């Protein structure tokens, strides 16, 4: 009688090198203050954008970043602005603000004005800053993962030492092209960090309703890409993970996946009533894990007073109000702009 085939493969042998468990970033007081300011700017900016949307000044789709601020701020603070590139999906306002891009041109893009960063032709989902090596701002779920792999290909091809940070959500993590990209990125050892911003809901579908493997950091295993799960509500954890990931990638060891466990307080977009989760669930995250409150407590522990923070907050409100006023008043694009920039050259 023939031997019965083995029912199970051998358990995986941990023969592959993996990045070390990241350590929380040890921030100086100035760095902490800086994180706080950036996150608060994103929060206030997004709240204002939500307001302007309600007033009809912003149209179409508008995806707010409220609740997820620590991810963009923590990760991008670790990048080398001269070399590294960033690409993301349509929830992109926070990533732009984290680069220190003028809130006025971002808000003016949201209101569709000529002074917007895309001259009013892109809108909320399509903003770019090649100066900062920020490559958008993409509206098709998952497309930015292949495009980001292409940016990483470019870094390697040009040998410029850069790393690409490609953000995508837990929803995009189920797109086929993500895995096509994982395969090529590891095959060619491309310098890329795949950042899954797991905010628990792909529009209205929770991760475990859509994902057979809901521990998304493991999604690279069959491509031999290591993954790290990170507390995306803690900016220091985010920064620490970014440093570990960057060290791995810069050493030529190929891509790495960071799963940032985070949460969005608002609906998927402005038109989403978010009936798929309870008010209590959202409130509980706000109360227990808010990324800004977390840093506020750390700052207070370092002797920063409530009054100091108040001044800072007032400054930020001023900046955001100025951006909103600008975005409301600055003119719409000239009608002739309709036909410009379809092509670069004339034929």
């Amino acid at each position, binding site marked *: 009688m023939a031997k019965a085939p083995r029912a199970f493969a051998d358990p995986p042998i941990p023969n592959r090198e993996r990045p070390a468990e990241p350590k929380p970033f040890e921030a100086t007081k100035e760095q902490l203050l800086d994180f706080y300011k950036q996150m608060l700017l994103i929060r206030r900016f997004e709240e204002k954008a939500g307001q302007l949307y309600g007033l009809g000044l912003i149209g179409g789709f508008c995806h707010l970043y409220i609740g997820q601020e620590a991810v963009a701020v923590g990760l991008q603070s670790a990048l080398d602005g001269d070399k590294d590139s960033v690409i993301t999906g349509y929830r992109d306002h926070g990533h732009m603000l984290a680069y220190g891009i003028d809130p006025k041109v971002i808000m003016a893009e949201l209101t569709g004005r000529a002074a917007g960063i895309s001259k009013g032709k892109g809108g909320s989902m399509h903003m770019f800053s090649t100066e900062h090596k920020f490559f958008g701002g993409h509206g098709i779920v998952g*497309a930015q*993962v292949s*495009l980001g792999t292409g940016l990483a*290909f*470019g870094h390697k091809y040009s040998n410029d030492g850069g790393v690409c940070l490609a953000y995508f959500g837990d929803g995009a993590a189920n797109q086929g092209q993500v895995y096509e990209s994982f395969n090529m990125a590891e095959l060619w050892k491309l310098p890329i960090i795949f950042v899954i911003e797991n905010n628990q809901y792909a529009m209205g579908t929770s991760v475990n309703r859509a994902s057979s493997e809901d521990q998304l950091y493991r999604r690279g295993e069959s491509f031999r890409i290591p993954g790290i799960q990170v507390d995306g509500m803690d900016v220091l954890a985010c920064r620490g993970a970014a440093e570990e990931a960057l060290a791995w990638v810069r050493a030529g060891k190929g891509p790495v996946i960071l799963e940032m466990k985070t949460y969005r307080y608002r609906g998927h977009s402005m038109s989403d009533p978010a009936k798929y989760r309870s008010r209590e669930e959202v409130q509980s995250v706000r109360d227990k894990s808010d990324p800004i409150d977390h840093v506020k407590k750390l700052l207070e522990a370092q002797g920063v007073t409530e009054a100091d923070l108040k001044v800072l907050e007032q400054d930020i409100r001023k900046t955001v109000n100025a951006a909103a006023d600008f975005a409301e008043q600055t003119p719409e694009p000239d009608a002739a702009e309709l036909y410009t920039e379809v092509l670069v*050259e004339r*034929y």
Partner: protein
Amino acid sequence: MAIEIKMPALSPTMEEGTLAKWLVKEGDSVKSGDIMAEIETDKATMEFEAVDEGVIAKILVAEGTDNVKVGTAIAVLAEEGEDASAVTETRSGEDANAAPKNQATDTASPPMPEGAAAAEQESGTQQLVAAAEAHAPATPEIPEGTEMVKLTVREALRDAMAEEMRADDRVFVMGEEVAQYQGAYKVTQGLLDEFGDRRVIDTPITEYGFAGVGTGAAMGGLRPIIEFMTFNFAMQAIDHIINSAAKTNYMSGGQMRCPIVFRGPNGAASRVGAQHSQNYGPWYASVPGLIVIAPYDAADAKGLLKAAIRSEDPVVFLENELMYGRSFDVPKLDDFVLPIGKARIMREGKDVTIVSYSIGVGVALEAAETLAGEGIDAEVIDLRTLRPLDTATVLKSLAKTNRMVVVEEGWPTCSIASELTAVVMEQGFDDLDAPVLRVANEDVPLPYAANLEKLALIDSAKVVKTVKKVCYKG
């Protein structure tokens, strides 16, 4: 009964090949599966196996013979028990006829599968190819007195890429089988040897992924050439071509560019069925933000591909597999670049304008020859670029001839022909003496059966008939 061993067709488009090497000699016994010879096609060197058992009675075509037509008897096999020498004697009188050099001259005739008469098996794509052979008119952009070299479309495309890669380190080629395999259709032959694996990159079979990788690389400042094994497979990647590449410049207010070339064979190939036979020209040509080029001959293939690679805009470059092996004159110039968006008058005429592009141009030219014999003087225009369309050249010709027929190897519905018809209604109505008519493929998925394929595709007879109609002579 002796068996004639015939030159085999080793690819759907092969019409002739080189008998590179005999691995058996007269008197050898062979059995099914034995490798008898090595045959070089335009794409690869292939081994040729025996099907029947027997003794090689006579080798009719010596090794090293070029241009052996498919279907030519290359050896005679005596079956077991048969007298090999007797077989040789009865066959020897035919040797002169089987000499490959004589056979090679008639290049326009279709491949002849073993044991079948050509007429019975002639398929639709062969009529397209046959039409393409006969005509090679002058290109207006080439200075007079320029030395011309005969090149296949395949070689011209390869030379275009190689020249641009030599000139600009940002240019690289990526796709399935482009490097080590030397190209599924051998278009990238030799590039790996010259440029190495940094710039000639084999991908996994992952069109969506590598189209995105190429597009991202272009956004980051490189100049990728993305080869699709055929444009049928680009359907998996069309999101990146349209949503990522074509719209980037506009969406970013001119901030971010995407200088990329997506290229590969498009349109009907030979007997490959519906999923591998489609013309995507009209699809891409409907998208603002893209340049769409569909060259006909080798000179255009070279000059326009070089222009595409240099363009700051994303380009869809539609080649045609049936044309890859066709030879045309190509100017011997250091840097032969053609303008994008300029049609070419292939043949001047005064009675009717026939507009076409890609492989349809050959069909149009063949029809024009026939029509000339019947007293109708047709002007033939090759559009070359499908977006932006050179409507000025078309309208100018129409103003002269007052009649127009559009010939398109593709479906009629929502086609380039539909678009041109609309353009003429809007801008050339007063010049029309007859309605604009279309000669396009039948509005069905392309069938496999040879007779049905032939019925589905355009041919010059259909064009002749339609032209006579618009000339009120049919």
